[in-house]
């Protein structure tokens, strides 16, 4: 499997630290980029095609621009024929949000926090099988 470009979008520094560390340890990514909210992530992605990630782990509740707003803006964003696999990172308190998020065609899956090796491996197997 080719190494992939991963973007983490979460306002929680501790989660970002652990998740980035885990992804780096698994040696699956050529790049792991961390953005603290949807807006930061969008401006990063829109900088150019080379910044467009293969896989996005997206938190729901964030200040400035939350997960929902990110998904909407991401859809309306600039034209590119590249596609990103977007996985929502959830916590047990996200019940109603999940129902809503299932309506977004951009969302490829849901994973409960924290990420683990098994969860990441299953994402790779499902969406990036060689």
């Amino acid at each position, binding site marked *: 499997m080719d190494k992939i470009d991963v973007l983490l979008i979460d306002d929680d*520094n*501790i989660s970002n*630290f*652990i998740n980035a560390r885990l992804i780096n340890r698994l040696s699956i990514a050529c790049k792991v980029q961390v953005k603290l909210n949807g807006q930061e992530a969008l401006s990063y992605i829109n900088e150019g095609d080379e910044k467009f990630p293969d896989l996005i782990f997206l938190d729901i509740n964030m200040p400035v621009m939350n997960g929902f707003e990110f998904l909407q803006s991401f859809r309306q964003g600039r034209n590119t024929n590249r596609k990103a696999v977007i996985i929502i990172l959830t916590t047990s308190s996200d019940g109603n949000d999940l129902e809503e998020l299932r309506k977004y065609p951009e969302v490829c899956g849901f994973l409960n926090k*924290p990420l683990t090796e098994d969860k990441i491996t299953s994402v790779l197997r499902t969406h990036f099988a060689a």
Partner: protein
Amino acid sequence: MKKLNSILMVDDDHINNFINSKLIKRLKVCENLFHFSNGTDAMRFLEDYSINQKDCPDLILLDLKMPVMDGYDFIEFFKKTPFRNKEKVQIIPLTTSVNLKDSQKIEALGIKEFLIKPLKEDSLNKILEKHPALIKH
């Protein structure tokens, strides 16, 4: 004897936490004792503590092998985060066994001392004798 203001214990083993808490309480070496069963919860506690303008605990007794955020990750994250008064904090890793690779990893993180489990009165006292907050000026 002068007491520490607070000690933070981080270990995913509840029995260890229980026994170590008992020892620390019996020795009356600190005013406040906090314990958490993983690095993430302990780190969130430190973040909240810092946001509420409270100083970091004087001593952190840290298990190294824990799920999600292990002791090494804990130390690394702690070092790069601006907690209140963190320069006064002493982190002591607690381990079951130390091989060369582990001790090199600990040393690389700037930690000079560690304790072998189980925590004992003697070894805890040795750490406390040298703790900057307890040395008489």
